[in-house]
C-alpha cells in the first residue's frame, strides 16, 4: 500500500479526532473532576507548605528596608548576599559549627560500630541469655531520656566532663541506642545466612563475618542510621544546653540562640533578615543531605518508621 496523500491523511486525522475520547463529555467531566478535587487542593496545599520556606530564604536576602514592606513581598527586589557574612560574624560561627560537626561525626562513628556489632550478635550468634537481653534492649526504648538526664549529668560532672563534648559523644560508643540496635538487627535478619556460612567455611571468624560480610551488605540500613543520626544530633538542643557553657565549647544551635537572645536582652533587636540568614545556614546541611540522598532518605524513614 502506498503512503496516504496529504488529503487522505487530513481526512484520517479528522476522523480520529471525531472519534476521540476528548469529544465525549465524560472525558472532560472526569478531567475537570480530577483537576478540581485532586490537583487544585494539592497545588494550594503545596503552596501553603512551601510558603514559609520561601519566606525564610527570601527574607534572608532582603535589605533591611524591604523586610517589613506591605504588602508582603516574597521576591526580594535585590539580593543582599552580604546579609550572610554580616550575620555570621556576630557570633563564633566557625568554632561552634566545628563543635557540632565533631559531635555528629563522633556519635555517628560510635553508633555505626557498636550498634551494628550488637545487632549482629542479636541477629546471628547464639549465646545463653540472648533473648532476655534483647527484650531488655526493647524495654529501654520506652524509657524517656529525661529520667536519666539528671543522673547522667551528675556522672559527667563527677568525671569532670562538664563543658566538654564528651558527654554528648561517649554514650553513643556504648551500643549506640536501643532503637538503632533494633533497626539494624531487623535488617541483618533479612540477609541470607548462606553468606555467613560460606565465609565461615573459608575460615572467617565470627567478628570478621560482621566486618566483611554483614556490614558491606547493609549499606541501606547503615545509611538510614546515618541520616537519622545527622538529623537527631543537628537538632539536639537540651543536652548541649545543659552540658556546654562557654562559647568555645557550645554547639551551633546554642550559640545562635544565645546570640539572638542577647539582642533581645540588650534592648536592640537583631535584624530579622540576619536571623533568617542564620536560620537558612542552619537548615542547609539537612537539606543538602536530603537532596543528595533523597531515595535513601525516604527509604530510611519508611524502614524505620514502620519497623521501629
Amino acid at each position, binding site marked *: 500500500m502506498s503512503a496516504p496523500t496529504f488529503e487522505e491523511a487530513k481526512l484520517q486525522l479528522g476522523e480520529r479526532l471525531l472519534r476521540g475520547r476528548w469529544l465525549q463529555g465524560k472525558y472532560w467531566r472526569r478531567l475537570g473532576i480530577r483537576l478540581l478535587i485532586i490537583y487544585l487542593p494539592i497545588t494550594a496545599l503545596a503552596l501553603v507548605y512551601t510558603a514559609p520556606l520561601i519566606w525564610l530564604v527570601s527574607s534572608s536576602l532582603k535589605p533591611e528596608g524591604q523586610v517589613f514592606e506591605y504588602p508582603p513581598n516574597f521576591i526580594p527586589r535585590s539580593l543582599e548576599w552580604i546579609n550572610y557574612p554580616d550575620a555570621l560574624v556576630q557570633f563564633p560561627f566557625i568554632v561552634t559549627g566545628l563543635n557540632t560537626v565533631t559531635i555528629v561525626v563522633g556519635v555517628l562513628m560510635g553508633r555505626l560500630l557498636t550498634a551494628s556489632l550488637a545487632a549482629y550478635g542479636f541477629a546471628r550468634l547464639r549465646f545463653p541469655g540472648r533473648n532476655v537481653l534483647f527484650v531488655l534492649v526493647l524495654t529501654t526504648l520506652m*524509657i524517656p*531520656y529525661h529520667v536519666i538526664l539528671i543522673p547522667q549529668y551528675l556522672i559527667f560532672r563527677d568525671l569532670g566532663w562538664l563543658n566538654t563534648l564528651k558527654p554528648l559523644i561517649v554514650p553513643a560508643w556504648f551500643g549506640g541506642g536501643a532503637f538503632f540496635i533494633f533497626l539494624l538487627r531487623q535488617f541483618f535478619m533479612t540477609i541470607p545466612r548462606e553468606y555467613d556460612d560460606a565465609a565461615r567455611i573459608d575460615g572467617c571468624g565470627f567478628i570478621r563475618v560482621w566486618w566483611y560480610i554483614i556490614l558491606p551488605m547493609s549499606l541501606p540500613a547503615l545509611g538510614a542510621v546515618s541520616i537519622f543520626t545527622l538529623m537527631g544530633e543537628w537538632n539536639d538542643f537540651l543536652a548541649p544546653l545543659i552540658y556546654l557553657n562557654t562559647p568555645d565549647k557550645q554547639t551551633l544551635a546554642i550559640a545562635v540562640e544565645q546570640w539572638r537572645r542577647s539582642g533581645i536582652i540588650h534592648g536592640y533587636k537583631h535584624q530579622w533578615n540576619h536571623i533568617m540568614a542564620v536560620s537558612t545556614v542552619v537548615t542547609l546541611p539537612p537539606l543538602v543531605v536530603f537532596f543528595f540522598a533523597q531515595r535513601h532518605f525516604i527509604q530510611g524513614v519508611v524502614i524505620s518508621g*514502620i519497623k521501629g
Partner: protein
Amino acid sequence: MSVDVAWSNRPWWRSKLRRQEVLAGYFTILPWILGFLIFVAGPILFSFYLSFSEYDILKPPKLIGLDNYHEMFEDRLFWQSLRVTTIYAAGAVPLAVVVGYLLALMLNQKVGGLSFWRTAFYVPAIVPVLAVSYLFAWIFNPDIGLVNGLLRQVGVEGPPWFASRQWVLPTFMIMELWAAGGGMVLYLAALQGVPSSLYDAAKVDGANAWRRFWHVTLPMTTPVIFFQFLIGLIASFQLFTGPFLVTQGGPANASLFYVLYLYRNGWKYFNMGYASALAWVLVVIILVFTLLSFRVARRVVYYESEEP
C-alpha cells in the same frame, strides 16, 4: 522474637566452635551491656532515689520520703504544665495524623509528578527546630508577622498568636502541622503497599470508592497510623526545644510544657530532687499512655498476619 535454631543436645561449652560463638556473642554486645549499666540502669535507680530526696547539687542528697510528690500536688505550676502538655498533645497529635494521612491519600490518587509533590510536603519536616522556631515566631508575630500582614490585606485583624494565652497552644499546633509531611511519607508507603488484588475483589463485589476506602485502605494502614499516633503522643509529652526557643513558657505560663518545667527545676533552681520526681511522673504518664494505646489498638488496629 526470634526462635533459636538447631540448639544441639550437647551443652555449648563442649564444642570448641560453639564456645567461640558464645564468646563472640558476648563480645558483640559488651559495649551495649556496659552502656546499659552505666548510662541507663544505674541512672534510673539513682534517679528513683533522687526523687525521694532533696538535692541542690552542692550538699549531698538528703532523703525526705514522699515530700517531693506531696509538693507536686500543691504545685500550681506542675498542674499548669500538665494541663498545657495534655491539651497540646490532645490537639496536635490527632491533627498531625489526620493531615498527614489526608496528604498521603491525595498523593496516592495516581497524581502526575508524585516525587515533586512529595518533596514539597516533606521538606518542611526536615527543617531544624531552631529555624522553624525563629521562622514561626516571626511569621506569627501579631504586629510585624507575615500571617497577620496578609490578613490585614483582606481587612481582617488577626489574633495575637504566640503572644496570647488563648492562642499560644493552637499556634504551636500549627507549627507541628507544618511537619506533617514526615508522617505523610510513611502513610504513602503504607498505602502503596496495599495489594491491588484487594481493591479488585472489592470492586467485583460492587464496593464504591468510599466503601473501598473504609473496608480496605483504612484497615490495611491502621498499624502505621497507630504507630505514628503513639510516637507522636510520646514525643509531644517530651516537647522542649520549640517552646523553649519561641515562648520560654509564656505568656503567663500558658505554654509551660512539662519538660520545660522540669528543666527549670533542675537547671534554673537546682532542685534536682524535685526535677527527678517530675521525671518519674513523666515515666508513669508515658507508660500509661503506651499501655492504653495498645489496649485500644487491640480492638481497632488490623494486623494482616492475624486471623480475624
